[in-house]
């Protein structure tokens, strides 16, 4: 109703992260904006063809430049997102060759205005400290349709990867 829309978001932080407190508004955060790509059906079909040994296209892989030509966000998407960021004074951004990600650095204060609803806090686990938002963010409806999600707000590194060292079992356990 306010002209802002939310994405589907995974807000809940695992309980093993300890809340330290709100970050200072002047602290920098880096957010990753995933811009809407084009031709995704064609990308999927191309992948099917180049990976299917029964296809004449099998093995005819694309270069990064060709992938970029295929999925690069539309001029409109790029313009709308950049204009939105600039309007909030966010100019420290870098893109990638496929132009479908923008990584921007800004203060937490600016980020919270840019993404209404977000509130940045610091959390610690073991010796690791991270800054994440405790609440879902929204973006203006004009921008919403041009983004897939904004990264750097919610997801945290897992505690362990898929490896373990087991103890030698005792005879009783066996």
């Amino acid at each position, binding site marked *: 109703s306010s002209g802002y829309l939310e994405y*589907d978001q995974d807000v809940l932080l695992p309980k093993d992260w300890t809340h330290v407190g709100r970050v200072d508004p002047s602290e920098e955060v880096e957010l*990753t904006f995933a811009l809407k790509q084009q031709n995704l059906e064609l990308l999927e079909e191309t*992948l099917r063809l*180049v990976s299917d040994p029964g296809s004449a296209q099998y093995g005819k892989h694309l270069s990064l430049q060709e*992938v970029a030509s295929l999925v690069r966000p539309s001029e409109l998407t790029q313009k709308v997102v950049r204009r939105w960021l600039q309007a909030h004074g966010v100019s420290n951004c870098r893109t990638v060759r*496929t132009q479908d990600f923008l990584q921007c650095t800004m203060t937490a204060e600016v980020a919270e205005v840019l993404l209404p609803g977000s509130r940045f806090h610091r959390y610690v686990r073991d010796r690791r400290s991270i800054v994440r938002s405790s609440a879902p963010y929204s973006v203006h409806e004009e921008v919403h349709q041009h983004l897939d999600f904004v990264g750097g707000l919610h997801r945290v590194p897992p505690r362990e990867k898929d490896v*373990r060292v087991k103890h030698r079992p005792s005879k009783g356990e066996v």
Partner: protein
Amino acid sequence: HLGVTPAILRARYNLTAADVGSGQNNSQAVAQFLEQYYHPADLAEFMAMFGRTFPHRSEVDRVVGTQGGGKAGLEASLDIEYIMSTGANVSTWVFTNPGRHESQEPFLQWMVLLSNMSDLPWVHTISYGDDEDSLSTAYMMRLNTEFMKAGVRGISLLFASGDSGAGCRHQGKDKNTFRPSFPASSPYVTTVGGTTFKNPFKVTYEVTHYISGGGFSNVFKMPDYQASAVEGYLKSVTATLPPQSYFNTSGRAYPDMAALSDNYWVVSNRVPIPWVSGTSASTPVVGGMLSLINGQRLSKGLPALGFLNPRLYKLKGQGLFDVTEGCHQGCLDEQVQGKGFCAAPSWDPVTGWGTPNYPALLAALLS
């Protein structure tokens, strides 16, 4: 034997001393996300101890990202030591993505990096995953597109299937479901499960390792390339199938293949460590072998394997040892009593199509 070493793996998967990379135009990579650093001295010591029977490299060719100091991580040590043992003498990279800023997501950083580098290794192995239900659908869908972007470039992405079997999600009183893991559940990656020797002290045939992750996605629908294999499984094992309320029969089913995942030796912080287990071990082992196959293909003027699954499922198990014994773990409740899915002839959601028989797989994938 007293645990899995490169020699044991190479014996089981029929890799001879001549089955190593020629070193030309071929490379492989492991990606690390949790401030997990390998230590060059560990790799050198590991190869000195365990690499005497085959030509190999003892150094990583390129580290992308910041190689941290201090203690080595067990995960990083395992990944690099074993991809360089089966993918021996192949140029190897490490992507290290600790997240420079406190607000960075290391996995996302790695994905962004792939979109920005034109020359990448052909095979990447990643031993990392989250429960599907802990991630937003928007995020998973976009990452799935990023995996497509890599696949269409001819890059093979291999993910560990996870170490919780079918997993278990408690959904209120007396109601459980299996818990799939992402990116293992993406239809555009090759997911690797785990096995163990039938006799843990001999190079015997393999059986299911109970930790081997596997099951059916609740987010991604079943891709066409696997529909027939999965349908065959579901029809043939009705007696041992868990109740259908535990899993989504129309979802992407995984893993796609497997390798040994139990009782590995790893050198970390200069100490040889036994009893290391997990699909973190099986994934680089398979990755290394695919790199060798890529090397053979490239030397014959053929393209790299790229996204393997459509071809793997067409092989219907050719070039692989079928794993048909054992079940992985599931929910510990009255209905399934700790059991998830069970292995069966042909494809199954515990070990996929099975484990590599290198010369046969090479022959099948060289045509």
